[in-house]
């Protein structure tokens, strides 16, 4: 049985296109220092550092933990670097939690980042793999056909993605850290934005951001000394499947369904729409909201879009199950950190510490991340209650 552990500190940078005022080291340190301040701790209180980011090619720094140890106060301590594609932010949080859940450490710091302005993610995602067919498309080109298949199967109206894109930006406008600040965005504006990878329009896509997110995770005893309310980690799960295999269900991947079933079982969730107060879910392209609503059991297969269109996932429309109140990946996408931002924002909600995008009285929330060809999944459930 895993030890009960909690998030007691969260720190994020402001997400923006370019952070030319700081180095990569400066960026991660900014988030880490804020997490320590949030937990009222100092560097000496940290026993190990777990760091994550998307491919090294994004910044051109190989195994950046080697360079970042000094900035993260890790000299003389253990430091681990996780890399599981786009899900890495979530996976890193889970690996960090396992350091404490296993009883091996009492308190750890975990940090994820991306400084996309120092390289070109489209290039890094598209360079040819030896012995493999070359997809010179980036992530949008990869996911567009899968979205089209979802639209065909579900018969969803054409503007579901437009609604999600608008809703998440309105959420983002409540969050001063969000990259895109578009308080006056309209569905018409989204619809009229250029088509990038049919059916994904420019404003239905995530931005490229610089930014970092950090958390302090500790055991039950130390969490009791925390100045702010801890977010108890009630379930943790990861699943992977290959990018391609005969008969693979790409719209509603088995790995996602298995992963969420596992995490719900641990947290005693049988009806996610009723038992969860909100969710932070990795939606980098608008249509992934209805697709994940189904994959994560909030709606029946083919019906996820109905929740979106009814406003159930919107904070502004008073929905019963708000998704991505922070603005989500559609408002800020520092790729390697994006998964951890979901996990951290879920924790902020149950700590009652989400300011203008707080869901009133939230006690239980889901954090979700996915990566690769929608084949790697990482999820956790956090709660204000120990359970």
């Amino acid at each position, binding site marked *: 049985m895993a030890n009960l552990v909690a998030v007691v500190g969260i720190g994020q940078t402001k997400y923006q296109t370019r952070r030319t005022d700081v180095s990569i080291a400066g960026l991660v340190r900014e988030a880490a220092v804020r997490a320590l301040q949030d937990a009222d701790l100092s560097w000496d209180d940290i026993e190990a550092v777990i760091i994550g980011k998307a491919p090294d090619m994004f910044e051109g720094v190989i195994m950046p933990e080697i360079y970042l140890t000094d900035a993260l106060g890790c000299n003389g301590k253990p430091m681990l670097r996780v890399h599981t594609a786009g899900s890495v932010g979530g996976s890193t949080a889970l690996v960090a939690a396992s350091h404490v859940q296993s009883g091996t450490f009492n308190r750890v710091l975990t940090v994820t980042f991306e400084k996309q302005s120092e390289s070109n993610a489209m290039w890094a995602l598209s360079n040819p793999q030896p012995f493999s067919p070359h997809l010179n498309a980036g992530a949008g080109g990869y996911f567009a056909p899968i979205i089209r298949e979802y639209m065909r199967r579900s018969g969803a109206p054409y503007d579901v993605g437009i609604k999600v894109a608008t809703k998440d930006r309105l959420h983002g406008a409540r969050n001063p850290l969000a990259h895109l600040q578009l308080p006056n965005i309209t569905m018409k504006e989204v619809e009229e934005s250029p088509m990038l990878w049919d059916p994904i329009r420019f404003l239905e896509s995530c931005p490229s951001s610089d930014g970092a997110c950090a958390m302090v995770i500790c055991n039950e005893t130390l969490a009791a000394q925390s100045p702010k309310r801890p977010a108890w980690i009630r379930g943790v799960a990861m699943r992977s499947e*290959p*990018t391609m295999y005969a008969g693979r269900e790409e719209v509603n991947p088995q790995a996602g369904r298995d992963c969420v079933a596992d995490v719900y079982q641990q947290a005693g969730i049988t009806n996610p729409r009723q038992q969860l107060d909100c969710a932070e879910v990795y939606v980098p392209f608008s249509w992934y909201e209805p697709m994940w609503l189904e994959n994560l059991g909030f709606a029946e297969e083919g019906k996820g879009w109905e929740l979106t269109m009814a406003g159930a996932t919107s904070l502004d429309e008073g929905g019963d199950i708000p998704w991505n109140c922070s603005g989500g990946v559609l408002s800020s996408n520092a790729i390697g950190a994006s998964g951890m931002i979901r996990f951290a924002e879920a924790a902020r909600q149950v700590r009652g510490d989400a300011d203008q995008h707080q869901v009133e009285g939230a006690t239980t929330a889901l954090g979700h991340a996915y990566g690769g060809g929608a084949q790697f999944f990482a999820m956790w459930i956090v709660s204000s209650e120990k359970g």
Partner: protein
Amino acid sequence: MRDIAIVSYAQSDCVRDAGARNEVELIMPVIKNALGAVGLNNAQDVDFTCSGSCDYQQGAAFAFVLGVDALGAVPPIKESHVEMDAAWALYEAILKIRMGHADSALVYGFGKSSPGELPAVLSQQLDPYYLGPLWVDSVSLAAMQARLMLDQGLISEQDMAEVVVRSRRNAMANNPHAQLKGEVSTESLLAQDRWVSPLRKHDCAPVSDGATAMVICDLEKAHAWGVPYAIIRGIDHRMETHNLGARDLTRSRSTEQAAAACGVANGEVEIAELYAPFSHQEIILTKALGLSETTTVNPSGGVLAGNLMMASGLSRIGEVAQRIIAGECKRGVAHATSGPCLQHNLVTVLEAA
């Protein structure tokens, strides 16, 4: 905390150039062998899988994603990856077992260094603003470290050559997967030209392609499977500053710290497998681990006999485990490293059941 057993280990031959074989083709045979040794068929038969690799060896982002293809991960599996040597993938898997979310795990590492120039590639591990742009390669940095040791009279070139002689000899006697092996004399080695002064070519690990895999589990599972095993008695890893000028390069403090934390000194160390890509580093590590004359160092020949970048650390642990399982010894230590001049070090203590 639950005791954890290593029940199987498999390694490919270390070859200079695996040619057209891709990563999946390097990984599949070792995974099959590691699983097969305990009567398992595929990744669904263990509770967790974790791997270590580096995108820059392949020169493309997400190299490990193709690795998942080698696992036959249908239906989906619990799986994770570190962009580190697979010894750290083992560390992650151990945490997963300790926390009770797995009873068994498959760990693997792979590297195909042949398509690139490994020392130059590794220069991009350095601080990207001050050091990276200078393209100081890993061999040059190690040469600087060796020079410091020679100048301080801590080692002689004879000592370095003796490390190489022993590596080649042990590899010939004990390691069917070695790339470099044979009987050589210190005189013949010292007669060679210097390559990156003071290092001669044989002071440096060769560049190798290949893969390794290991199966670990808790003791109950090992008994259920009815297979012999070695117990992981302690495992710890520590990082040091990246500022080379701020470190005493003639010793390895982080190895000392990790060794103390995992109890290397709590018993006799019969064998030790050290990840020393340069001959002088074996001397640094032997000292840092507090090994005595009675310890057999690198019975496999170590990485001077073949260096599977990103898998060599796991391979050191596997080599010790294999010898314990075979009854050749009762207690051994394995070491893994990462970063320039031994910046990050992991130490494992293994014992017979």
